[in-house]
């Protein structure tokens, strides 16, 4: 099955160093359209750096990133989003002081390809009812429909993570980069997030960075292991579980 799928994201020998330290050292990775691809690795392996480089928050020093056939390396973050690449952050990144609904409408409004320009200075936004309707729809998808009028900072941690997922979904991505979506969550909230990602994965390709191994092995179609800035293994969960290098480098006695 999987070898018939098209490659959506092709990361080819990407390097990124900070001073003399290589956070990424010729890391290569292929994400196929439609899969949930988990990226695991010990702390400091370069996972978040890779997400930063892919999303455009940091430039790569070397290497090539192809997304849906387009070279991303020189594109600014907002153009990558327009191409269909969206990310969540390890630390929740929403608009805390805005209402939950305003959070989502501003994200929906970002899709200029659907709504026309945001350089509209005169027409009241309240007339853009289609955007508001879509925002309500997204809130329903992440089970926050009842909280639309609350300020985002009043939500629980888990609800805020779900809100961030709604923001990311609003950009209608082809590929979701989720950076530790379960970080800091209790077991109930984690279970809810796993359910949400399973639901999303039917429509979107996901590159998931996560420490919670139960979630990773439950969600992932394929797993890549990043150690010391290099991908040391890529394959389906069974192969990764059995891989001797991975067990030595990462899973340790857990495997």
């Amino acid at each position, binding site marked *: 099955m999987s070898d018939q799928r098209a490659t959506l994201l092709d990361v080819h020998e990407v390097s990124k160093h900070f001073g003399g330290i290589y956070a990424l050292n010729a890391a290569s990775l292929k994400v196929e359209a439609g899969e949930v691809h988990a990226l695991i690795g010990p702390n400091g392996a370069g996972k978040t750096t890779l997400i930063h480089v892919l999303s455009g928050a940091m430039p790569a020093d070397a290497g090539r990133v192809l997304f849906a056939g387009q070279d991303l390396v020189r594109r600014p973050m*907002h153009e990558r*989003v*327009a191409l269909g690449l*969206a990310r969540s952050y390890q630390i929740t990144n929403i608009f805390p002081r805005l209402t939950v609904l305003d959070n989502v409408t*501003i994200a929906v*409004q970002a899709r200029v390809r659907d709504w026309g320009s945001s*350089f509209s*200075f005169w027409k*009241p936004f309240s007339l853009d009812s289609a955007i508001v309707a879509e925002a309500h729809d997204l809130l329903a998808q992440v089970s926050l429909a009842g909280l639309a009028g609350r300020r985002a900072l009043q939500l629980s941690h888990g609800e805020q993570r779900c809100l961030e997922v709604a923001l990311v979904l609003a950009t209608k991505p082809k590929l979701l980069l989720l950076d530790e979506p379960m970080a800091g969550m209790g077991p109930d909230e984690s279970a809810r997030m796993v359910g949400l990602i399973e639901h999303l994965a039917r429509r979107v390709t996901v590159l998931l960075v996560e420490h919670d191994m139960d979630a990773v092995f439950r969600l992932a179609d394929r797993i890549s292991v990043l150690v010391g800035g290099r991908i040391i293994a890529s394959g389906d969960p069974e192969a990764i579980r059995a891989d001797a290098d991975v067990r030595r480098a990462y899973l340790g006695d857990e495997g």
Partner: protein
Amino acid sequence: MALYRSSPGRRIAAGVVLVLLVLLPWLLEILDQSFYVSFASRVLIFALAATTLNLVIGFGGMVSFGHAAFFGVGAYCVAILADSGVLSAALAWPLAAGVAALLALLVGAISLRTRGVYFIMITLAFAQMVFYLVLSLKSWGGDDGLSLLHRSTFGSLDLKDDSTFYFVVLALLTLVLAALDRLAHSRFGRVIQSIRENETRMEALGYPVFTYKLVCFVIGGGLAGLAGALLVNQSGLASPSLLHWMQSGTLMVMIVIGGVGSVFGGVVGAVLLLLCEEFFVGISPHWQIGLGLVLLAVVLRAPLGIAGLFGWGRNRE
């Protein structure tokens, strides 16, 4: 801060204030205090200048410490044009706004690449550069400033008449406030307010943040130039002190007192500050100590400013 939302109550309050302001010249005439009409124009012009800064700081979240440069450049444009015989307001005022907007484009294009305290410092540096440039140009009066011998002419309106000039100023201020209210509720207004709230998130949602901030900065700068064009007509002098950093500071104090990020914050602040100055300066030359205490109280107890206290600002919930 939540996104700005105007309420019917706020609009009614603004309408009542507008009616009072329209009646003001007659009221002053009845009270035999017509001298104050020109002072009232001055207050409204500063209200306009402070409002333009509020667009940049309060809505756009760009703490610019160089707004006086655009204000002063507008004033100098009108004075220089008048000096070379161009008196038409229809020509000189838009030109003043245009030159100020162009300067804002230049300053913004460079300054907006920095954030936080660096942005504050670099806008201050640019404004001081313009200040010293004007100070050194003897042909434009150097540190004496440049007098405006004749007020601008505007069709059949006699701007030399203080009441007529007052009404023109009031009309322009009303227009700008109405436009700002529209802008605050428009797509663009929501984008710049959301950038103020979380710039990184906006970038990650696909907004070209730099462009939005620059457009907002240029609109604010250009309208400040218009305020400067009005001020030189009111006072009859384009003085280098209009460009000085203390002028930028005064405008900031106005919006902090009035209400940062509220459409009427600049107006409230300018009116309070200039009224206090007018009436307390006669009582004691050290009246600004009192101002300092008021500022302290506002920052500590009412961070949304006076407008916020009365619910004229943003929705607090």
